[in-house]
């Protein structure tokens, strides 16, 4: 599931951060982002809590 518009290897030019030295595969970056996204955001239904009848 490649995504040609993702350019994470080359951050926005307005930022002064250096471009990462190692090129990374888009797939790997996407996967890593999804993993870290799981860690930053966790979702559950409002019914997903035990102790509510």
């Amino acid at each position: 599931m490649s995504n040609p518009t993702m350019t994470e290897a080359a951050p926005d030019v307005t930022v002064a951060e250096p471009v990462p030295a190692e090129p990374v595969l888009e797939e790997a970056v996407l996967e890593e982002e999804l993993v870290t996204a799981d860690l930053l955001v966790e979702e559950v239904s409002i019914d997903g809590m035990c102790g509510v009848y």
Partner: protein
Amino acid sequence: MTGSTGTGSTGTAPLVEEFQYGLAAPICLTWELTYACNLSCVHCLSSSGRRDPRELSTAQCQAVIDELERMQVFYVNIGGGEPTVRPDFWDLVDYATAHKVGVKFSTNGVKITPAVATRLAVSDYTDVQISLDGATEAVNDAVRGPGSYAMALRAMDTLAAAGFRGFKLSVVVTRQNVTQLDAFQALAGRFGAQLRLTRLRPSGRGADVWDELHPTADQQRLLYDWLTERGEHVLTGDSFFHLAGYGGALPGLNLCGAGRVVCLIDPVGDVYACPFAIHDSFLAGNVLGPGGFAAVWRDSELFADLRRPQTGGACESCSAYDSCRGGCMAAKFFTGLPLDGPDPECVRGHGEAALAAPGRAGGAPRPSGDHSHRTSPRARPREPVPVTIGRRPPESGRGAGFTDRQHPPDRACDASPLAGFHPASRSAGVALGAGATGGVDGPGR
């Protein structure tokens, strides 16, 4: 994806660890508005039937809602007893939604008229849950009483006719109805409702029928498989997290929410850790106290204890522990099992073994109150309907509803669910038999 123990490379802690610091407010909570009820369901978790004379007034209820708004509680699940029998019920629902607190109320359908259904259908901030425990009249009415099936179906029909899509059909899974899961699904579909299946706990009158009504081990497996294969749109209130040991957790937080993300406010304003744990051991305070509900949620010792990360105790070495987290605190408590040991319905059978263990004194804690009708409120049906007669007179001298701590407990675990549980040293919890001198209320188990 294990239970709630995953850690992240970004360093975010698992939620169960965050809960030790306490959430600013419960995410949602159960609020039993009244102990009055037109029915006498045999397994009622709140032993409801008769109104308690100390029931909160309209003004006191509004003050609670004001607090919930300030605390930004997203949602309150209003139940009872039968909440709609309170004359101010609809006003309180309106008051809550006007104050940005979402309301889902649980009802047996007695007061769902077309006019009511129309009002409810148009709001995003109200939801309705119709209780039903059999997909057929025979199975349902054996538990909920004659006429209750017809009443529930009439209510569902009324809601559907008013255009209310997605209301909840909520079922407590029992030995008798676990074979009817597909039929429940069809019933929900027929009325445009969403099916909700929840676990029977040995709470309230449930303690008296637990042995006959709780699903067998085989049925439990059947239920788990059904939920996994066909339960994509079925809600469970995370009440089956004890089944995660079968492999793969069901949707939800997958942990005990008591005192951490949820709690109960009862009809007299007592705050308990969970609606399935109405017992002095789980009483955190009362909303009529000086700091109101907020102070109880934030500062009660009981909730601080519950929020601390718990070790598995006797379950620690079990490979399923990461998934099942030792199961349901209320189920253990009311079957007389230690809280740091297996759930009575442990999928590995450890609970059954613990219940059968020799040297385990008979008996289990009784619920703290009993508002049951003294006799069945309806005429005898064709078939016998099991009716629970109140076993104890109402407690006297409870004053403003604070705990009964003047009376010495029969056993250590009557005083505190954490008896023998020392967070620092993690000694083994109280085994039921240790030091027990008998003398529990009611017939032993």
